[in-house]
């Protein structure tokens, strides 16, 4: 029971209060770049969630099984980015061969993910928070879901923006960033919600 409660706290914190995009500023480029359409937001969100969960599953044994015993923890950035790059390639190949429909819907986003700082970010965060394997996976899943929710909400906001008459200097990136600011402001409202539910 204690374990389930702990995992729920990690999950909800990742989705709402510590939202990766809107409060930690990770994965801003895909968030702003791909959120123009609702279906591509969902696709990107799902692909990121999937890679994040797998990356934390893969990097955990590498860190605690190889880097720590050898005393070279400082190599974690290099090791992790290599693992993520290789892993993304592998997933792409496997999906292409065995699950063509899934590849068709997720495949286009996979190459973008290697350089998505959210994926490397979540694996590094799992280390600094000293999560165990299960907690790491739940945390990554929550972070990915949070990313997806933020993208979906923002896709809605942007479709409204497109119909507005915006001052010339603000068109394009500036108004997009300002809209993101308002969405981020809304997410501040979730502060304390998780503590409130679980009485932590």
């Amino acid at each position: 029971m204690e374990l389930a409660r702990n995992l729920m706290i990690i999950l909800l914190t990742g989705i709402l209060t510590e939202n990766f995009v809107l409060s930690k500023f990770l994965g801003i480029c895909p968030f702003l770049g791909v959120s123009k359409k609702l279906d591509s937001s969902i696709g990107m969100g799902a692909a990121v969630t999937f890679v994040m969960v797998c990356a934390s599953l893969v990097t955990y044994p590498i860190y605690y099984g190889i880097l720590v015993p050898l005393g070279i923890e400082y190599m974690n950035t290099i090791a992790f980015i290599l693992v993520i790059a290789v892993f993304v390639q592998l997933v792409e190949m496997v999906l292409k061969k065995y699950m063509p429909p899934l590849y068709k819907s997720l495949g286009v986003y996979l190459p973008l993910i290697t350089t998505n700082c959210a994926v490397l970010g979540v694996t590094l965060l799992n280390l600094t928070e000293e999560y165990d394997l299960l907690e790491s996976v739940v945390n990554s899943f929550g972070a990915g879901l949070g990313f997806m929710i933020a993208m979906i909400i923002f896709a809605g906001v942007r479709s409204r923006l497109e119909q507005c008459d915006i001052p010339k200097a603000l068109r394009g990136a500036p108004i997009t960033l300002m809209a993101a600011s308002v969405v981020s402001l809304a997410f501040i409202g979730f502060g304390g919600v998780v503590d409130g539910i679980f009485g932590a």
Partner: protein
Amino acid sequence: MSYMKEFTKGLIKENPNMVMLLGMCPTLAVTTMAANGLGMGLSTTFVLVCSNIVISLLKKVIPDTVRLPAYIVIIAGFVTFVSLMLQSLAPDLYSALGMFLSLITVNCIILGRAEMFASKNKVLPSALDGLGMGLGFTITLLLVGSIREILGSGQWFGITIMPEFLEPMTLFILPAGGFFVLGCVIAIVNRLMKKKPREIGCHNCPNAANCAGNCSEKKEGNE
């Protein structure tokens, strides 16, 4: 003369984050204080110059098919070097930047310059290009950091400069303030340069070519 141009283009005309709209994550995340922005900018500049030099030297050795992993490993190596240096020389800055120091590795400015410039040019222009782009990045971070620190906590580099009766607007050091200030800065730059406003997206991402034409925006064929 042309060497000078490689250096100055990154400062304003092709400023990586104000004009090219790259590397948004660190621009927003570490700029709650001007000093952090400056530290992050200089660390990134160092990595950018070193990786540009090394990649430019190795451009004939690295096979084309594995060039991206090779670049990433080179960049990650320099990032590890910088973070070890900062850890021992400036521990306060090290803990303030935290995870974002490691995340310099995936900063698209660095990989972008490696792919677009260093892999095609000689050592000296590549180094100057890296220096210019890095300093352009630093200027933006310093600017955004200064605005947010002055408005959000009434200080600049830790020295109180706002009069007492003005309550600092905490909003500006919250994430929402970061998006807002950067939006305003880009709008002002657009206005001053009388440029056609850019949209953030794959079409000005230097890595778009590496997506093997898979970029979602390209696929949808808009613009």
